[in-house]
C-alpha cells in the first residue's frame, strides 16, 4: 500500500519543518518582528532623497507628539489639572518631554530681537521704513503714547525706533491660543470652557509596537482621573491612531482567524465524522509558519495588515488535504497514500496556479501586496508540502466514513443544474449572464483613497477636529519644498511664494503658512534697510520733540548700522525661531533647501497651481500623489491579471490541451466579471483592493474548474470536493468583509463574490477525456 518513498517523505519533511522552526525562533529572538507603520505599506512616490528627508521631517511630530486640551469652565481648575497630568506624564517614562507651560526665556528673546532688528523686520515694515520714513516715525510716536500696546520686551531706550515691537507683532499669529500670563500656560476659550494646552513628545515613535498602546493607556487613565474632577480631555496624535489600528488588527485577526478556524473545523467534523480529520489543520499551521518565516526573512519584519489579510490563507491551505479527503465518498475503502497518489497531479497544478495568482500581486507597486504575496505563496508551499509529505502518514489507517448529507447536496445541485439546462440551454444562459454583467458594469464606480487603509474610529477624528476648531491649529499634510543655489535666492523664492499664499489667505482658501522668509529677510533686503536708516535723521524731528535726546538717537543709528547681516542659521538660533527650525533643510547637493508648512487648507488643487511657474518651488502632496498611484495601479493590476491568466493557460495546456486550458481559465475570468457587475448592482465602489481580490480569485478558483474537469470519482464527488474547498475558502475570506478597515473589507467582499460565482460556474468546465497519466487508477 505504501511505497518506500512514502516512508521517507514524512521524515524528510520533519527535518525541513524543524529547520524552519529553528529559523523562526532565531527571527523572533528579539521580540515580535511586527510593524504597524502604515507608510511602509504604500508605494514610495518620492524618489528624491531630499523630498524624502523633508517628508520625514514633517511627519516626525505626527508620530511622536501628542496634543491634549484640558478643559474646564473654570480656568484655574483646568490649569491645575494640566499641571497635575503634565507632572504625572513626565514621571511615566513614556515621554521625553512634557510641556504644560511656557518657560519663556525673556532675556534670550530680548537679545534675539535686538540682534535681528535689521534681518527680522517684516516686508511691510521694511517697505514703510524705506518708502515712507515720515509715517514710520509718526507710528513710533503714537506707539510711545499708546497704553495698550502690550508689554514691550525691550525697553524704549534700547530701541528708540521700536523695531523689536514691529518684529514681534509681524510674527504670524499661530491659532487662537493665548498665553495665560499668570501661569504661563497656553489657553483657548471655546464652548464655555477654558482649554489648556498640554504637549508631550514620546521617547520613541508611533511605529514602536508597544509605545502607542502605552500612550493610549496612559491617556485613558488620565481621562478617567480628569473626569472625576469634571475636567474634559481632548487628544490628538498619530500615536493614538497607531494604537487603535493595532488593537483593531489584533481584534480582527482573532475574529477572522478564529472564526475561519472554528467554521472549518466544524465543517470537517460534520462531513467526515472522525476526530482524526482535525489533523487536516496541520497544513494550515505549517502554512502560517512558512509564510511568516519567509516574510520576516525577506522584509525584516511583518506588517500587521499582512497578518490580517494573510489569516484568510487558512481557508485556502485547508483545500489541499480536502482534495484527497473528499475522495472518501467515492473511494471505498479510503486509504491515505493511494488517495494522495490519485489526486497529486491536481494538487500540484492547484499549487502552481494559486502561486501564480498570488505572486502576480507581488508585481504591483504596493509593498503591502508584495508582503501578502510572499506570505501567501510561501504559506501555500508549506501547506502543500505538509499535505503531501506528512499528513498521509498521520492519517494512515484512518477509516473515513463520511456523512452522506454533503453528497446528497452535491447530487441534488447537479440534478438542479441538469433540469435547468433542459429548459434553458447554455448559450442562452451565457447571454443572460453577459447582459447581467453589462448592466452591472455600467453602474460600477471606482473610488480610490488612501483613507481606505485606515479604519480610524469616529471618536478619534472627531476629537482631532474639535481640537483644530478650538486651537486654530490645522496642520495639513501638504507642504512646499523650495530649493535654491544659495540662501539669498532661497529667501527670494520663498518671498515670491509668500505673495501668492498671502492672496490665498486673504481669499480664505488657506488659513496660514509658515516660511523662513517670515523670520529673516534676504541679505540684499537687509542691506536696503541699513541704507534707509542712514536717511532717517531727516525725519525724526517728532521724536526729538517728545524729548528723546538727539545723541541717543544718533547712537542707536550707529549701533543698528553696525549689526551684521544675519543668515538663516543665525536667525534660527534664538527662541523666537522655535516653530521655524523644522523648516530648514540646510545645505544640499545643489545648494540649499527649506520647506513652507501650511495651515487649514481646503483646496489642494489651488496650491498646485501656485507652484507651477515659480522656479525651485514644488508642492509635496503625498496623499494626492498616492491617490494618483492608486488609480494608475488599477490599470496595471488589470494587466497583471491578464498576464497571470496567460501563464496559467500555459501551465494547463500540458494536462488539458489548449481548448481545455482556455475553458478552465475562462470560467474564473467570467466569475470575476460577474463579481464586478455585482459590485455595480450593489452600489459598492470598485477600489484597488476589490481588484486585487479578483486577481486572487482567478488563481484560487482555477482550482475548482480543474477539480470539476478532472472528475475523479464522478461528477457528484468532484462537485462535493469543489463545494468543500469553496466553503472553507469562502469562510475565511468572507470574514474579512466584516473588517472595519475599508480596504480589507473591500478585499473580502470581492473575493467572496468571486468565489461564489466560481463555484456556480465550475460545472461548465467540461469533462476531461483522460488519456494517460492522470487516468483514474483502479481504486
Amino acid at each position: 500500500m505504501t511505497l518506500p518513498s512514502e516512508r521517507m517523505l514524512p521524515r524528510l519533511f520533519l527535518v525541513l519543518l524543524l529547520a524552519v522552526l529553528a529559523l523562526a525562533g532565531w527571527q523572533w529572538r528579539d521580540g515580535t518582528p511586527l510593524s504597524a507603520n502604515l507608510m511602509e505599506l504604500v508605494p514610495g512616490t518620492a524618489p528624491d532623497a531630499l523630498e524624502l528627508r523633508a517628508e520625514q521631517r514633517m511627519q516626525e511630530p505626527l508620530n511622536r507628539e501628542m496634543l491634549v486640551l484640558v478643559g474646564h469652565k473654570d480656568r484655574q481648575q483646568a490649569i491645575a489639572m494640566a499641571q497635575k497630568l503634565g507632572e504625572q506624564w513626565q514621571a511615566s517614562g513614556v515621554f521625553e518631554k512634557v510641556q504644560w507651560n511656557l518657560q519663556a526665556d525673556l532675556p534670550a528673546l530680548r537679545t534675539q530681537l535686538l540682534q535681528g532688528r535689521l534681518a527680522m523686520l517684516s516686508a511691510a515694515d521694511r517697505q514703510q521704513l524705506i518708502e515712507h520714513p515720515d509715517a514710520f516715525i509718526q507710528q513710533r510716536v503714537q506707539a510711545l503714547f499708546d497704553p495698550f500696546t502690550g508689554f514691550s520686551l525691550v525697553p524704549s531706550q534700547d530701541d528708540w525706533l521700536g523695531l523689536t515691537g514691529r518684529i514681534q507683532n509681524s510674527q504670524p499669529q499661530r491659532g487662537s491660543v493665548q498665553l495665560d500670563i499668570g501661569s504661563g500656560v497656553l489657553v483657548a476659550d471655546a464652548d464655555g470652557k477654558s482649554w489648556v494646552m498640554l504637549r508631550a513628545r514620546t521617547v520613541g515613535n508611533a511605529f514602536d509596537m508597544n509605545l502607542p498602546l502605552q500612550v493610549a493607556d496612559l491617556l485613558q487613565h488620565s481621562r478617567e482621573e480628569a473626569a472625576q474632577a469634571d475636567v474634559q480631555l481632548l487628544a490628538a496624535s498619530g500615536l493614538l491612531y497607531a494604537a487603535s489600528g493595532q488593537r483593531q488588527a489584533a481584534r480582527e485577526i482573532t475574529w477572522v482567524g478564529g472564526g475561519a478556524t472554528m467554521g472549518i473545523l466544524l465543517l470537517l467534523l460534520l462531513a467526515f465524522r472522525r476526530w482524526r480529520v482535525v489533523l487536516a489543520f496541520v497544513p494550515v499551521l505549517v502554512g502560517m509558519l512558512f509564510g511568516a518565516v519567509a516574510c520576516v526573512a525577506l522584509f525584516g519584519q511583518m506588517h500587521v495588515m499582512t497578518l490580517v489579510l494573510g489569516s484568510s490563507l487558512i481557508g485556502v491551505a485547508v483545500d489541499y488535504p480536502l482534495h484527497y479527503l473528499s475522495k472518501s465518498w467515492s473511494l471505498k475503502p479510503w486509504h491515505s497514500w493511494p488517495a494522495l497518489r490519485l489526486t497529486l497531479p491536481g494538487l500540484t497544478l492547484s499549487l502552481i496556479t494559486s502561486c501564480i495568482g498570488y505572486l502576480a500581486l507581488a508585481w504591483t507597486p504596493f509593498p503591502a501586496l508584495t508582503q501578502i504575496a510572499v506570505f501567501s505563496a510561501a504559506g501555500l508551499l508549506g501547506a502543500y508540502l505538509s499535505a503531501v509529505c506528512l499528513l498521509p502518514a498521520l492519517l494512515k489507517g484512518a477509516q473515513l466514513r463520511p456523512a452522506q448529507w454533503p453528497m446528497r447536496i452535491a447530487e441534488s445541485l447537479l440534478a438542479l443544474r441538469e433540469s435547468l439546462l433542459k429548459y434553458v440551454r447554455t448559450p442562452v444562459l451565457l447571454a443572460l449572464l453577459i447582459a447581467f454583467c453589462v448592466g452591472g458594469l455600467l453602474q460600477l464606480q471606482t473610488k480610490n483613497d488612501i483613507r481606505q487603509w485606515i479604519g480610524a474610529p469616529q471618536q478619534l477624528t472627531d476629537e482631532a477636529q474639535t481640537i483644530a476648531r478650538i486651537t486654530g491649529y490645522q496642520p495639513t499634510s501638504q507642504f512646499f519644498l523650495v530649493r535654491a543655489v544659495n540662501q539669498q535666492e532661497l529667501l527670494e523664492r520663498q518671498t515670491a511664494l509668500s505673495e501668492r499664499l498671502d492672496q490665498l489667505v486673504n481669499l480664505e482658501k488657506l488659513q496660514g503658512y509658515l516660511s523662513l522668509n517670515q523670520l529673516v529677510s534676504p541679505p540684499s533686503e537687509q542691506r536696503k534697510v541699513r541704507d534707509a536708516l542712514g536717511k532717517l535723521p531727516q525725519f525724526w524731528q517728532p521724536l526729538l520733540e517728545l524729548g528723546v535726546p538727539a545723541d541717543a538717537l544718533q547712537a542707536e543709528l550707529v549701533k543698528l548700522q553696525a549689526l551684521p547681516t544675519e543668515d538663516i542659521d543665525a536667525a534660527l538660533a534664538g527662541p523666537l525661531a522655535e516653530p521655524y527650525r523644522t523648516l530648514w533643510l540646510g545645505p544640499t547637493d545643489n545648494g540649499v533647501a527649506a520647506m513652507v508648512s501650511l495651515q487649514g487648507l481646503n483646496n489642494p488643487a489651488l496650491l498646485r497651481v501656485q507652484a507651477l511657474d515659480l522656479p525651485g518651488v514644488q508642492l509635496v502632496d503625498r496623499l494626492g500623489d498616492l491617490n494618483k498611484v492608486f488609480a494608475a495601479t488599477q490599470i496595471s493590476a488589470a494587466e497583471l491579471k491578464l498576464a497571470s491568466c496567460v501563464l496559467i493557460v500555459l501551465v494547463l495546456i500540458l494536462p488539458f490541451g489548449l481548448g481545455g486550458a482556455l475553458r478552465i481559465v475562462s470560467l474564473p475570468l467570467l466569475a470575476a466579471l460577474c463579481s464586478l457587475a455585482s459590485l455595480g448592482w450593489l452600489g459598492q465602489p470598485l477600489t484597488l483592493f476589490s481588484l486585487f481580490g479578483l486577481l486572487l480569485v482567478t488563481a484560487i478558483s482555477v482550482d475548482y474548474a480543474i477539480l470539476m474537469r478532472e472528475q475523479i470519482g464522478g461528477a457528484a464527488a468532484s462537485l462535493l470536493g469543489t463545494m468543500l474547498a469553496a466553503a472553507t475558502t469562502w469562510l475565511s475570506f468572507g470574514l474579512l468583509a466584516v473588517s472595519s478597515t475599508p480596504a480589507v473589507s473591500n478585499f473580502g467582499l470581492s473575493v467572496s463574490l468571486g468565489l461564489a460565482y466560481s463555484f456556480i460556474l465550475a460545472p461548465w468546465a467540461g469533462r476531461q477525456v483522460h488519456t494517460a497519466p492522470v487516468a483514474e487508477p483502479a481504486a
Partner: protein
Amino acid sequence: MLGFSSLAQAFDLQQLSDQLAKPDVIHGNFIQEKHLRALPQPLTSKGTFVLAKNHGLLWLLKTPLQQDYRISDKGIARRDASGWQMLPNKSAGAEQNRLFLAVLQGDSSGLQRDFELSLSGDAQNWKLTLTPRSMLLKQVFNQINIDGGELVHNIELLETQGDRTLLRMQDSTSAQPLSDAEQHDFAE
C-alpha cells in the same frame, strides 16, 4: 495684635471689590505719564475715559495726539477713519488689557490669580499693592500700585526694565449715564 487684625478686617479686599463694582458708569479725565529711564521728562498724554459695567472701557486720548481706544471682553479696538478696528489678539497684550480692566473694576478675584495683593487704608483712602506671582510676570513687572477712595485715583506700573507708567484719573464721576454716542461706541 487683636486690634491690628480687627483693623485689617475693617476694610478688606471683598469690600474694595464691592465698592469699585458699584457704579454702572464712570466718566473722568486721565493724565498718563510714561517715565522712561532714558528721558529726563515723562511722556505725558491727556484725555477722557468712560468705564461702563458690562461694556468695557473707552479711552479717548486727546493730547498731544488724538486716538480713541476701546477695551472689552472681545479685545482691544482702535478707531481710524473708517471706524473701530479690532487689533490682532496678541496673546501678551490681550492679557495685559484683561488686567487693566480688572484693576479699574476692582475685580480682585481676577487679580489674585496672578498677583499677591496687599491692601491698606480705609474705604475713603486705600492703597493696593500688586506683586506678580508667576516667573513670567516677574520678568515684566516689579509691582503695580493702585490707590483711591470711592473710585480709583492712581495706577502706577513699575516695569522690570526701569520704565514706569503713572495713570492719574481725575474728576471721576458716577453720576452721568452713558450718552448715545458712547452707547453707540460700545455697541459697534
